[in-house]
């Protein structure tokens, strides 16, 4: 599907460049700090030199991390745990995320929950492309992260990051709902540290 409108490329962090940590980090946030990611972002802001816009950034970041609407696309086993995460015992609604939008146009976040087969891969990519910026992807479970149990299979894509950029990986087969929530919290931490003045061309 073609898209109209103007597209914006937000200032995203190339997480692939992060190498292994020096110390033994415990939480992923510590890992983030360990790799100097926050400092990188701060330095990028200082270069622009506008504190006001970084405040706007912070407001928008706060809004964005507080209202991540996922697109409701389950692929396989992990989708059931996605439902479990949204349900009464774990209640993703506490983070304001219970609005699972069936239309990707209104979503901010995509859970790649389950095995991405080769036949499904172009559709997943299309779904991702239909989402408006800024958007994030969480690869859930072994299948979406690397191909997992089906890595030797002839019809399974070996990791969804081959086709779309992934922000957070949640291992587990499938991960229990708390692990999902932990992954979501990690994503919130990441969004907190992103620079998004790009909409008005302020940060560039």
């Amino acid at each position, binding site marked *: 599907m073609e898209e109209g409108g103007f597209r914006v490329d937000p200032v995203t962090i190339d997480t692939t460049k992060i190498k292994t940590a020096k110390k033994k980090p415990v939480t992923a946030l510590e890992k983030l700090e360990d790799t100097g990611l926050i400092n990188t972002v701060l330095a990028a802001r200082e270069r622009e030199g506008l504190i006001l816009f970084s405040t706007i950034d912070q407001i928008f970041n706060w809004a964005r991390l507080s209202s991540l609407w996922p697109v*409701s*696309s*389950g*692929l*396989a*086993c992990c*989708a*059931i*745990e996605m*439902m*479990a995460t949204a*349900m*009464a*015992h774990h209640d993703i609604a506490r983070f304001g995320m219970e609005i699972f939008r*069936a239309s990707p146009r209104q979503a901010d976040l995509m859970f790649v929950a*389950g*095995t991405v*087969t080769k*036949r*499904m891969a172009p*559709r997943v990519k299309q*779904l991702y492309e239909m989402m408006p910026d800024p958007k994030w992807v969480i690869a859930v479970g072994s299948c979406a992260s690397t191909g997992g*149990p*089906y890595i*030797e*299979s*002839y*019809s*399974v894509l070996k990791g969804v990051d081959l086709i779309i950029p992934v922000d957070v990986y949640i291992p587990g*087969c*499938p991960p*229990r709902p708390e692990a999902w929530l932990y992954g979501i919290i990690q994503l919130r931490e990441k969004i907190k540290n992103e620079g998004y003045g790009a909409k008005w061309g302020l940060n560039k």
Partner: protein
Amino acid sequence: METDELIINMGPVHPSTHGVLRFKLRMDGEIIKECTPVLGYLHRGTEKLGEMKTYLQFIPYTDRLDYMSAFPNNYAYVKAVEELAGIEVPLRAEYIRVITMELNRIVNHLVSIGSLLLDLGASTMIMWGFRERENALQLFEKLCGARMTFNYIKPGGVREDIPEGFIPQLNEFLKDMEKRIEDYEQLINSNEIFLMRMKNIGVISAEDAINYGMTGPTLRGSGVDYDLRKYEPYSIYPDLDFKACVRDECDSYARYIVRIEEMKESLHILRQVVDTIPEAKIVSNPKYGVAPMTGTPSAVSTYFPRIFTPPTGEVYSRIEAPKGELGFYIASDGTTKPYRVKIRSPSFCNLTAIPKMVQGLKIPDLIAAFGTIDVVLGDVDR
């Protein structure tokens, strides 16, 4: 009057196709003229992997076929292997297996009914269903350390014995569950809108249902009194008192009622099993004889064979999974790996009848009828 046909592609990403199924619909306005399910968006090549893994290594993969009810999958595969190799199973292990399978049947039906109601637009039932499901999953986790993919039932027994505190918790769950089912019935059963949506929708006669190879609650909803647990008994089901739940309206509502009744029957079975579970061994070992009753992982690792070679031959073994007849065909060539694994999955065969069921209905009816045959795409596509 000349009208144009509208062709709608429902799926593979659509809120009510329970995953990644796609319907190609030829529509005349809102009426479905022809419905063609397009499968394979979750085809993961499990059967090929079955040939590449050893018998024990393949058990985790069976969990991921019908991920709503993994225990029956485990059991069906293990039963096939046991029949192939002629392994006897200690009684306590069979009791534990029946506990897990019946619990899993309840879980499966909860999610099935919940997602049916969600597709019809009522979001509450699925929340309540998952609330009880979570309690059951805590039992599973207590028993085997995982919530959905268990890898628990092994050839000749089960992986670990029942832990302390499991039976009281199970009893509590059973007591709780009865009240909850009353709640569900009060919420749904006589709801006029629900009846309007379900009665006389997705009708399939008994002859058609048999001819299409439908099994499980979908078949019993069409008035065929057939339950493999009863008429081709396996495990300890011959000793248990239960009935096959049959309704003969043949429509979506009948299939829904069959599921509710089956949950009650499962509770009944569980109550019997919990009362009579024997104190005995949980693992029998084809090579080392029968192991003593154990509960610790170390004992399991001691008494479980790492490599396992059944004799040459082939077997087709089937059980009554929550969704219908689940069968495993295994051909062995006497090596450590199966020569061929074929999975007869209930969802796949039940789905065959969908085009017949929904012809001349509308999209909302397609969703209602599709919801009641309870398809899991991992099971369809394998």
